[in-house]
């Protein structure tokens, strides 16, 4: 890649964008004008909000004794109202023999009638403009209370809720007064009955409070604006260029696709950063101005003050990777679009994907730890929050993981964007007439021996969706036989069925798709030995994952429930059949059979392995389990690619599952299966002893490396099988000719 060409493309795109009035308006003018306009509107709105008056109907005020002090001249005593509310509450008082008294007194017990009555009452209150109706009922004889109060409000109406709050405030103040009066009559004070007085000492200084407040707001704002700021220039630089016909002009030039894409990403990035900064500045100024105008320092928002300078520094620093990531993603996505209009449609899915990752750090419970730091965007947001809050020691510990994840995401996104610009079906995509008939005809016509890439991805997504719905709807079984039955049915329905049906419908050779055309029986013992050797490595990984992402209490409950079920099973072989062999068979058919076979049309060794493992990992609903199974999936896919057969994969998978069951300690006498290799059982199950595990992992790694670099093909394991099949074919042919 020539930097001079990248610079040229970047400078041209920048000049082009800066000469576009629409872009300048979106990037510069909108942020600078929008927020002041919004602030002005807020001030106007605030006037209305402050003057919301409420109308309260009081029925049966004659039951309130005059000497109680609550009523003066037949009206509620206004001294109990807050000063600000005095002009905003309008009371209408009627006697209990008024028609309203009868209406409010009618309270049917029948649910249907009660609903009808509520509807009627709601209508009547709306018609007469009452936000709240209050019925005073005389107290029963012998009761301490002078009267009881029934409140009729509409909780779906904000004004009604405000009226309830105001009325309750009056009652509370009145009751408080009465209690104090009665206590005073006996020379007592209310303070004597209160618990030990609490003195609250806030050790946070004003600067810290400011930092904490802005640390929650600013990363979110930056994230949203950098995404939006990246997307619009990206649409113009990709779809716009396609539309105007200038993209082909550029593609004919000596600049490489990668140079063009990097130049465009840099332009988009600069616009993304500029939009974010301008929005931030404009929002901060307007916000502070509005807050001050609303109430000066007395207003809590105004009291917070502007963000500290260190926050601005960290935000600008974080903006660089955030914008780089969003710019690369936006360019890659916008390359799909044939026109600027079509490009607009792609913005929403991108926001929908990014939003949960951006929202997660806003939750009060989410903190920066190794687990969260490894989540793209979320980790960066949390690191930014920690830095703005000034917790540098905590932040420094996670700078490494966050940087690695962010750089990896940026690199993948940039590679994707470059890939898009090298893909002529993306650049010169023509619209096809899509119809079910056409689609079915196309699928049947284009059938190959193994599934296409699209089929494989569709199968993976279908399995995930089925697993999600079936997982939610399946009722937990408390008895082993029912559990075993449900497990097998769910596996068949969600994993095996899609792969089997799609292989039969979409491919010419289901056997070739499921890697069953070559049995390679001799590799089966090797796969079992490999699974045995690598199992300690996965145990270590599993423990590490549980350290990073500690299991929730629900997960522990589920674990306990599973242990109880397994303990109630008739025998270990039965457990292994249901929990080790059945998943191995069905999952291998789907993930290494259908999905990997389809993905192998990608002209790269690693992508099919990586993507199939990703689906395999995602299909295991629990995050901790998904991470480990992703790596198991990598090994299984490598075995499938090298052995060219599904049998060793099933053997490996079943062995791995069986060892995991034994190691989990669900069976009390687990160590009898692997004597001398295990440490004594703990609450977390068994662990491999140090020396055996080192030896096993080393042997497993050597086998895997040997296998991957073609050792298997050169060995007699495969050649013998090949000779055997040739011999049997020859014998069959001889028999036929005879």
């Amino acid at each position, binding site marked *: 890649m020539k930097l*001079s*060409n990248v610079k*040229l493309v970047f400078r*041209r795109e920048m*000049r*082009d964008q800066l*000469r*576009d009035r629409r872009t300048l308006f979106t990037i510069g003018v909108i942020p600078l004008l929008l927020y002041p306009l919004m602030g002005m509107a807020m001030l106007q709105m605030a006037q209305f909000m402050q003057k919301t008056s409420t109308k309260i109907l009081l029925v049966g005020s004659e039951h309130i004794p005059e000497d109680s002090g609550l009523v003066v001249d037949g009206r509620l005593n206004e001294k109990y109202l807050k000063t600000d509310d005095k002009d905003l509450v309008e009371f209408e008082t009627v006697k209990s023999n008024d028609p309203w008294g009868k209406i409010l007194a009618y309270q049917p017990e029948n649910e249907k009638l009660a609903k009808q009555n509520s509807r009627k009452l709601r209508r009547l209150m709306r018609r007469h403009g009452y936000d709240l109706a209050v019925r005073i009922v005389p107290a029963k004889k012998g009761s301490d209370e002078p009267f009881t109060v029934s409140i009729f409000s509409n909780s779906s109406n904000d004004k009604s809720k405000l009226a309830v709050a105001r009325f309750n405030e009056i009652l509370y103040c009145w009751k408080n007064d009465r209690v104090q009066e009665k206590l005073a009559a006996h020379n007592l004070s209310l303070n004597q009955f209160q618990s030990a007085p609490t003195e609250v000492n806030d050790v946070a200084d004003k600067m810290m409070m400011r930092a904490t407040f802005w640390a929650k707001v600013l990363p979110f704002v930056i994230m949203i604006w950098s995404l939006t700021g990246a997307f619009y220039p990206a649409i113009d630089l990709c779809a716009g260029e396609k539309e*105007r*016909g*200038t993209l*082909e*002009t550029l*593609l*004919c*030039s*000596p*600049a*490489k696709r990668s140079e063009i894409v990097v130049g465009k990403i840099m332009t988009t990035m600069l616009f993304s950063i500029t939009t974010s900064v301008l929005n931030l500045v404009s929002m901060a100024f307007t916000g502070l101005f509005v807050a001050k105008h609303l109430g000066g320092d007395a207003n809590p928002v105004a009291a917070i003050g502007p963000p500290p300078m260190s926050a601005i520094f960290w935000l600008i620093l974080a903006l660089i990777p955030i914008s780089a990531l969003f710019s690369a993603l936006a360019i890659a996505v916008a390359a799909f679009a044939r026109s600027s209009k079509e490009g607009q449609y792609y913005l929403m899915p991108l926001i929908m994907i990014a939003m949960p990752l951006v929202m997660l750090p806003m939750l009060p419970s989410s903190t920066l730890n190794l687990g969260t730091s490894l989540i793209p965007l979320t980790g960066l947001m949390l690191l930014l929050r920690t830095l703005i809050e000034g917790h540098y020691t905590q932040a420094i510990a996670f700078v490494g993981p966050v940087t690695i994840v962010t750089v990896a995401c940026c690199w993948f996104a940039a590679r994707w964007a470059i890939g898009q610009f090298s893909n*002529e*079906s993306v650049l*010169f995509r*023509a619209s*096809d*007439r*899509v119809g079910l008939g*056409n*689609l079915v*005809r*196309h699928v049947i*016509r*284009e059938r190959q021996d193994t599934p296409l890439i699209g089929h494989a991805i569709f199968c993976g997504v279908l399995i995930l969706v089925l697993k999600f719905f079936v997982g939610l709807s399946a009722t937990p079984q408390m008895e082993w036989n029912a559990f075993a039955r449900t497990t097998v049915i769910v596996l068949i329905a969600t994993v095996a069925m899609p792969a089997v049906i799609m292989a039969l419908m979409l491919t010419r050779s289901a056997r070739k798709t499921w890697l069953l055309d070559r049995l390679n029986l001799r590799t089966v013992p090797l796969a079992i030995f490999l699974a045995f050797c690598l199992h300690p490595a996965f145990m270590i990984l599993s423990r590490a994952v549980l350290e990073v992402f500690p299991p929730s209490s629900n997960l522990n409950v589920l674990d306990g429930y599973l242990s109880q079920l397994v303990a109630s099973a008739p025998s270990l072989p039965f457990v292994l059949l249901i929990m080790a062999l059945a998943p191995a068979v069905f999952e291998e058919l789907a993930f290494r059979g259908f999905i990997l076979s389809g993905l192998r049309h990608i002209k790269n060794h690693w992508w099919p392995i990586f993507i199939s493992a990703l689906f395999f990992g995602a299909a295991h609903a629990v995050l901790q389990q998904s991470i480990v199974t992703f790596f198991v999936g990598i090994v299984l896919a490598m075995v499938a690619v090298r052995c060219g057969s599904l049998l060793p994969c099933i053997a490996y998978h079943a062995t791995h599952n069986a060892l995991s069951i034994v190691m989990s300690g669900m069976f009390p006498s687990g160590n009898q299966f692997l004597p001398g290799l295990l440490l004594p059982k703990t609450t977390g199950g068994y662990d491999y002893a140090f020396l055996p595990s080192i030896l096993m992992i080393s042997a497993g790694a050597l086998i895997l490396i040997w296998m991957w670099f073609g050792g298997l093909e050169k060995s007699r394991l495969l050649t013998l099988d090949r000779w055997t099949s040739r011999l049997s074919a020859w014998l069959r042919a001889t028999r036929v000719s005879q």
Partner: protein
Amino acid sequence: MIHVRQLTKSYPDLQRGKFVALDNVSFDAMPGQIYGLLGPNGAGKTTALRILSTVLQPTSGMATINGFDIVQHAERVRRQIGFVSNNTAIYDRMTGWELIEYFGRLHELDEDILNSRMEAIFDRFHMNNIRDLLGSKMSTGMKQKVSIARALIHDPPVLIFDEATLGLDLIVSREVIKTIEILREQGKCIIYSSHIMTEVQRMCDRVAILVGGRLVAEGTFDELSDRYDESDFEELFYQLLLKHEKQDELQIHSA
């Protein structure tokens, strides 16, 4: 200079299964020659030229330009060619001068050479009046002149013109044709695609006639007249079109 052998390009198509835009096309074009690609709309001319300019990759077959393979040495091929098409537009928000300068720099021309070439080209094409005019303010003729200037800035040995006079008025299209003829005299190898018979007949030294992605006839005008016993080239072209369209229809029915 340009050697094309069994060049094929097909696209997946929902309705037809596979759409063959270019089917086993072979031809050679030499320096100092204008090679015409003639065919009706959708014959595969633009696809062939896009493949030669390395914007598209062939499904099968090969082609070399000035000795460089279009797939293996795509970047070098792009340095050997100047491509003008009605699809290769100019930037609306760049002046004529800026655009030519931009492409000159992408071709890594030295500052002095670039400036002298730009001056020469702007003089030759009478473009000094549009030096500082933005692309969006230019007429179609002006835009086409800038496009040609852009393709010539690095003085490539091969020039590809795809329907270069489409939508131009008579005066501008004559000017374009005159420019192309001057370039031939300078020894450039030129591929010129069009569906306008008179233009092709006037300019081209050899022609290849494409119908439905297939090359149905190739040679000089005299060779073609002798082969098909028809002196009127427009009539010859029409007869060839009819013949091959009928063949295509029969093939579709039998399928």
